[in-house]
């Protein structure tokens, strides 16, 4: 189904298994019990050194430093950030911010952290602290957001939505706005791997759709960008035209991303509870090859295999399927196959809006590429841009940074046509060198 890349694009690294919070919905299945105690494992500096050697050697593009709480293992966290920056690997950090200091924030800035993501689980201390099971957590997180903003480190917030707080989406969004955050993200709570009755937290399909509507309406009425940070089955979303942004993510676990645990175990994603090898004992490429079932379609449910929407959808979350429907190849509990035809009708009806190409462009100074057997994977800044075949790659390789490039000449040289050039501009591989053109002005 999917190509096997030489290595993942993105690796999430669990820097520490300890956490300042003990979220009721926490997806970290390895967290011990519900007694407020977490495991005490930390990545050591020696382990960091070996892990980073592999990550650099395999030309991974981006690292997400997470946990547990990564700031509870600052030595390892800052060493990873240092080596990543030195090797042109971009980074972001997921943190509760509870222990963040001004010095930490300044180090994030110095080391080029592209984004810090934290959780806001409600608009008040009462609900947030209740969910994270820690007094004063809300106050500390809000303070941490302000400290990051003062240090000019981009910060974003995510609201994990469960039955405990689904009625507070608008209010929490308003809090995010009042804190000066540029956008508001939200993700449905997923069943952790050590939990066999998540019904107290899991949204049902009707509640799930209502959650999407509330999030969309908040963004629409308040003119604030909203997003979801995980992939949902499109037949569950149903209104994919209304919620285009929410419908634009697919599960890429084991396809272009994976998660590394604090003990070196490699999993296809942070939620999934099966290891395919240990990066402290094996080469990344060997472990990556063992994840074939995540790429060959064998984990896609039978109902989805024959679904016309599958190429856009990917079949939803395999961990939710495992925990709530008994098998990683089961149906995502938010899937609604009877709505697939309705979804397909919307997708088929879409038309690409054509716009005139700028006269001249420049190569995005932030592009990076990694050779693959089919050509190359291209990143523009912290964001995946596209895959190119050998012909497309040859064009990019032949160009120099900082030069004005004639669009017409590029089309002629590449022999690929206007659509290729338009795609490269859309994906930020090329940027218009005239700010007015970039803004769509004349």
């Amino acid at each position, binding site marked *: *189904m*999917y*190509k096997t890349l030489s290595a993942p694009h*993105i690796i999430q690294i669990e820097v520490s298994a300890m956490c300042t919070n003990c979220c009721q919905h926490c997806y970290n299945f390895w967290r011990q019990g519900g007694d407020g105690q977490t495991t005490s494992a930390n990545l050591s500096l020696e382990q960091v050194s070996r892990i980073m050697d592999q990550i650099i050697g395999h030309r991974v593009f981006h690292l*997400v430093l997470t946990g547990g709480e990564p700031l509870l293992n600052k030595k390892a966290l800052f060493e990873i950030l240092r080596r990543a920056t030195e090797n042109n690997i971009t980074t*972001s950090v*997921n943190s509760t911010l509870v222990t963040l200091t001004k010095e930490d924030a300044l180090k994030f800035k110095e080391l080029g952290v*592209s*984004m810090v993501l934290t959780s806001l689980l409600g608009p008040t201390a009462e609900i947030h602290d209740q969910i994270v099971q820690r007094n004063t957590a809300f106050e500390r997180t809000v303070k941490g957001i302000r400290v990051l903003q003062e240090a000019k480190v*981009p910060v*974003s917030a995510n609201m994990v939505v469960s039955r405990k707080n689904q009625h507070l989406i608008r209010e929490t969004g308003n809090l995010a706005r009042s804190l000066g955050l*540029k*956008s508001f*993200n939200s993700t449905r709570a997923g069943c952790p791997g050590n939990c066999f009755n998540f019904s107290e937290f899991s949204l049902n399909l009707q509640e799930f759709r209502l959650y999407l509507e509330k999030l969309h309406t908040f963004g629409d009425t308040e003119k604030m*960008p909203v*997003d979801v*940070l*995980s*992939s949902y089955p499109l037949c569950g979303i149903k209104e*994919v035209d209304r919620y285009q*942004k929410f*419908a*634009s*993510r*697919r*599960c*890429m*676990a084991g*396809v*272009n*991303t994976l998660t590394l645990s604090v003990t070196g175990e490699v999993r296809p*994603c942070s939620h999934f509870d099966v290891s395919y090898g240990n990066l402290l004992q094996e080469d990344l490429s060997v472990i990556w090859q063992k994840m074939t079932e995540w790429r060959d379609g064998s984990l896609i449910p039978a109902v989805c295999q024959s679904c016309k929407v*599958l*190429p*856009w959808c990917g079949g939803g979350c395999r961990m939710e399927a495992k925990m709530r429907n008994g098998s990683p190849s089961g149906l995502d509990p938010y899937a609604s196959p009877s709505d697939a035809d309705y979804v397909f009708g919307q997708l*088929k009806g*879409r038309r*690409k809006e054509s716009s005139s190409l700028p006269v001249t462009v420049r190569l*995005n100074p*932030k592009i990076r590429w990694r050779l693959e057997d*089919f050509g190359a994977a291209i990143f*523009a*800044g*912290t*964001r*995946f*841009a*596209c*895959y*190119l*075949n050998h*012909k*497309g790659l040859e*064009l990019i390789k032949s160009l120099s940074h900082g030069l004005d490039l004639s669009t017409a000449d590029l089309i002629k040289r590449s*022999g*690929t*046509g206007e*659509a*290729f050039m338009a*795609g490269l501009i859309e994906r930020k591989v090329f940027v218009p060198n005239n700010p007015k053109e970039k803004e769509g002005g004349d």
Partner: protein
Amino acid sequence: MAKDSQQVAGFESIFDSGTGMEQGQFVDSWDDCYDCNVNCEECDNS
């Protein structure tokens, strides 16, 4: 998400060749987002 109806020369799909998913209406697989934990609005390339 899907926007094109034709394979665009120069680009490559993440879908394996020969599956049919890389062709025609499925060309835009290379336009997919993935779980990068970053809101697209806040991405430095948005």
